[in-house]
């Protein structure tokens, strides 16, 4: 079955649209918490597809992606909260957040992109930690980030008088805050999917893939590898910045804790686990890795109570344990990811693996 063609057919579009529209209402039956989980799943789809440009297309191993997300999140938090008494509108902050994240990407990328892959991984990882440490400590002598307490009372997304927080009545429907964000996020995710697809099949996207496959050969046919790598890095960073802004507004609260290394690893895992460079695979990876841990979180406790009559293992640690094991097992048995691109899948079958 060709999914690409299915999603482009009229029936496919109608079905997908109906599903996406119905989803937050179905989820709401289990409580608004599930709608919020859904929101995060889509936010992670957005983030993962941003990282996919860097890792999946250009083959640059970025372990500090969350730093760019943090830059976007703090940009929003500082420009739209009582912390500095600023309440700028979305059309100003979101581009500023994206631009700052992009700038951070260029500043980090320009000296480091000539490094070998593994070194790049460790440098980006270090960069992510530096950003987090600064967020944690830039509360004195001048209070910029408010340190570990983070910033609260952040403005929600709003267009004019239409706010995304609280419940609104539209055409007789009551739409909750998380449900409104859901539709905003779906719109953004569709946008980033379109951008990903178009980039992948473009002159620039092919050049990125060429760099990923063989940098020397790419140079030899006239590709300016340095500039193109920087472009991929900066684009991925900008997407991270936008996602961070939305995250900040949606939560109403940010603190350095949300931007730890494990988050970077999580997003990378979504890209790799799903099927690196293959857009449907990345989406699947993002949804699975956001929703499954929540299912575990809510499911494991009651299940243990029912079976053993007491809590044997702390659900939180079991959640991470399962996540770690999943990484190991998928790499062992499906190295191209759960849903690899058709070409790669065919090739794996041909080599009899």
């Amino acid at each position, binding site marked *: 079955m060709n999914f690409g063609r299915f999603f482009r057919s009229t029936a496919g579009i109608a079905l997908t649209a109906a599903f996406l529209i119905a989803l937050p209402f179905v989820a709401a039956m289990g409580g608004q918490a599930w709608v919020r989980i859904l929101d995060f799943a889509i936010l992670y789809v957005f983030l993962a597809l941003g990282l996919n440009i860097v890792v999946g297309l250009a083959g640059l191993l970025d372990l500090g992606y969350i730093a760019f997300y943090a830059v976007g999140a703090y940009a929003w938090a500082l420009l739209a909260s009582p912390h500095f008494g600023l309440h700028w509108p979305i059309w100003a902050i979101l581009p500023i957040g994206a631009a700052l994240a992009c700038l951070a990407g260029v500043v980090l990328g320009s000296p480091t992109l000539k490094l070998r892959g593994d070194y790049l991984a460790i440098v980006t990882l270090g960069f992510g930690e530096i950003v987090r440490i600064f967020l944690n400590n830039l509360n004195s002598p001048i209070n910029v980030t408010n340190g570990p307490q983070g910033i609260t009372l952040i403005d929600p997304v709003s267009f004019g008088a239409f706010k995304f927080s609280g419940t609104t009545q539209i055409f007789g429907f009551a739409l909750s805050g998380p449900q409104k964000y859901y539709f905003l996020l779906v719109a953004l995710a569709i946008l980033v999917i379109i951008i990903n697809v178009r980039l992948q099949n473009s002159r620039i996207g092919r050049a990125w893939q060429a760099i990923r496959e063989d940098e020397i050969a790419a140079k030899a046919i006239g590709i300016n590898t340095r500039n193109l790598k920087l472009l991929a890095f900066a684009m991925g960073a900008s997407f991270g910045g936008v996602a961070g802004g939305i995250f900040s507004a949606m939560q109403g609260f940010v603190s350095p804790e949300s931007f730890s290394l494990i988050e970077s690893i999580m997003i990378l895992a979504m890209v790799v686990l799903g099927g690196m460079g293959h857009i449907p695979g990345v989406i699947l990876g993002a949804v699975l890795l956001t929703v499954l841990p929540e299912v575990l979180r809510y499911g494991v406790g009651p299940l243990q109570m029912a079976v053993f009559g007491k809590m044997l293992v702390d659900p939180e640690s079991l959640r991470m344990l399962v996540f770690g094991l999943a990484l190991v097992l998928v790499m062992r048995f499906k*190295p191209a990811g759960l849903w690899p691109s058709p070409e790669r899948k065919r090739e794996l079958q041909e080599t009899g693996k």
Partner: protein
Amino acid sequence: MDIFLQQIINGLVQGSIYALVALGYTMVYGIMGLINFAHGEVVMIGTLVTITVAGSLIKAGMPVAVAGLAGLMAAVLVCMALGWALERVAYRPLRNAPRLTPLITAIGMSIVLQNLAMMIWGRNYMTFPSLLPKMDFEFAGANFTLIQIIIVLVSAATMGGLLLLVYRTKLGMAMRATAQNPAVASLMGVNINRVIAAAFVIGSALGAVAGVMVGTYYEIAHYQMGFMLGLKAFTAAVLGGIGNLAGAMLGGILLGIIEALGAGYIGDLTGGFLGSHYQDIFAFVVLIVVLMFKPSGLFGEKTGDRA
């Protein structure tokens, strides 16, 4: 001046621990080109095993020295077994996979080990038993303890032992040959599987020793302690030129000293704007700066791309 000397001493102690851990990273990387992200967790498990073994022996009335040695032995054995199992179960099946695959596996194993440790030892900080008498010395206005001296001496001895192993034994020769060129080494009759397993086992043993020393030094341990330690030790290995044993040792000590001096002087340097809680950024700033100017590390060989 006394602050300077004091920080050099502190840095040397911390640096010799980094060096021991860095050796584990560099050996594995040198032989199979893998960043074994789970190595920091091996160190952590070494510390926690020692707490359990030495702690319960002391409680049972054993002399502290005996209990401490038993704890060290137990940690070394457990970590060696763990290193061997990691290689055998997680990495060996991926020997010919694309580079990203084993790296993700390593990250996965790191998460698994951390959470297993939390299930076994709990999520609270644990007190490390005092294995060495508390004695203070003073030299030129700087203070240091018996523990610090012993840490530096044990590290030096362990590293010396490793160098003898690598440069004076048949196994060491096989390891060096594999690092140069696995295909040729295997044609020459080197059993690659054994060499790689040995690198993991030896590296883990060094990690266990480092783990015990970290515990003795800070007297506290936690299931998440391996992560930052591992990260910095890896940074030290890269700093010295990854794959290079002497580089890892020097890189570790250098990093320890830079960090200590940085923490001691950052306040003065930035006019009080940044305080010593920025200590952790030095490792990464130094790493980025070194790699910018010497992409193969301070003591690494230049590995050019061949057309």
